[in-house]
């Protein structure tokens, strides 16, 4: 109930228009991966999914950011059902990969931002290896590229107050790790699949 309300208000506040360009909103296990420029990215991608998908989709987020204060942990746990990972000092006990695989289980989808953090450059930074490892361990899961536009103008990095502009997001054609594809090749291809959706907003 609260989740739906917050998802609805997020969509209204950002005026977000979601376009399903390369695939439809299907109820199957997926990993959505997108460019990352704003703290709104994860919540908005999650909010843009139709309810049946949304309740089975968890955004992967930084433990160090979402465990500060009272509001953020509540949002992360009760609303977004986020998967909090250790990004600064991963150890053997809290390896982010294991946390993510566990969170997926048999029927949950993930939202991840393979750049590893919010960027201010117009082009996404090179992707980190997490996406590759996920694809390798769960080869049957679809990897859906998503382009998020204008979110950095609504809430840029380092700002607390939003400017209420219109955001939009495009869902592209799912990709999978191909046989014999190297880590570098795959990460480049994954990044390209996000960038090429850029022209389809607006």
């Amino acid at each position, binding site marked *: 109930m609260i989740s739906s309300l917050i998802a609805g208000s997020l969509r209204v506040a950002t005026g977000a228009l979601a376009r399903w360009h390369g695939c439809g909103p299907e109820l199957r296990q997926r990993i959505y991966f997108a460019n990352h420029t704003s703290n709104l990215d994860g919540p908005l991608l999650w909010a843009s999914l139709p309810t049946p998908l949304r309740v089975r989709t968890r955004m992967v987020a930084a433990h160090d950011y979402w465990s500060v204060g009272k509001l953020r942990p509540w949002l992360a746990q009760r609303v977004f059902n986020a998967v909090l990972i250790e990004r600064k000092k991963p150890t053997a006990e809290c390896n982010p990969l294991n946390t993510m695989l566990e969170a997926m289980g048999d029927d949950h989808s993930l939202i991840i931002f393979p750049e590893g953090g919010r960027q*201010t450059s117009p082009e996404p930074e090179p992707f980190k290896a997490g996406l590759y490892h996920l694809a390798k361990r769960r080869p049957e899961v679809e990897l859906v590229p998503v382009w998020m536009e204008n979110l950095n103008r609504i809430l*840029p990095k380092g700002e607390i107050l939003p*400017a*209420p502009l219109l955001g939009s997001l495009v869902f592209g054609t799912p990709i999978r790790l191909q046989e014999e594809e190297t880590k570098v090749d795959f990460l480049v291809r994954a990044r390209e699949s996000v960038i090429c959706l850029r022209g389809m907003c607006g």
Partner: protein
Amino acid sequence: MNFDHELTCLIAGVVGVLIIASLITRILLKKARSEGARMTLENVAARTRAWWGMVIIFTLAILMGITGTVILFGLLSFMALREFITLTPTRPGDHRTLFWVFFVITPLHYWYVLDEWYGMYSIFIPVYAFMFVPMRSALAGDCEHFLERSAKIQWGLLICVYSVSHAPALLSLQIPGYIGENAKLLFWFVIIVEISDVLQYVWGKTCGKHKVAPKVSPNKTWEGLIGGGLSTVVIGASLWWVTPFTLMQAAAMTAMVVLLGFLGGLIMSAIKRDRGVKDWGHAIAGHGGVMDRLDSLSFAAPIFFHVTRYALIPPSVIVLP
């Protein structure tokens, strides 16, 4: 608001027209054979549905009096401004300026309109806000395209907030012999603007040949402007009994509104074309964004407001609050 017999007639008339439009589109949709005709009619059906929604919301706002009306137009301004700034990009250095523009300047301006403080709302944006915008952006320290960025934000404020707000400001005009009846004037003005849009579209679609400014808008033709304009003048004049105008004044005012609305639409088309888009947004099915519906109104409203004010209110009555 004084909900008198004439206003009831006006609303009933609009609802009647919409019922007829809905019925005709439904019948034509059943008979349509070709794919192209179907597509056009689906679009007309979507537009008609959107018109129903707009008329219902607008009527409810009028029923709530000046507060409801000002809040409605304030929300429309907010939505139009976000479409405008989204499409005419600013830089990260403008972020804090934009926060002020959306959450302080726009609400404050509408507060002055609600307060009927004419002396303030007529200068607040073009003087104070226009000086504040570059000041705040300069403090953020980004010089790139500075003049262009300031101008974009100022223009957004002027068109989407300042101009649009002159429609609800009509409610505060103290016209002798028409006190308490201003809701009808606002309703009449909005009807004229929108009917003019619709009729220019219909005339242009059916017999438009000579384009007025093909590079700016291929849909705007002389046939559409003249045919749609003249038929709107006939409708506007025939509704003179709800306005404070005489028959001739109503006809002249309608002609002015049609012309200003046409030029406003043309200006906004030029901006859209410059940005390489067709619509301002996706807020209203069949119509594009809010700004696609408000463009003619925003250019007609301030001039209509002032002409009405100077024509009908004797100088001795005008007291600046």
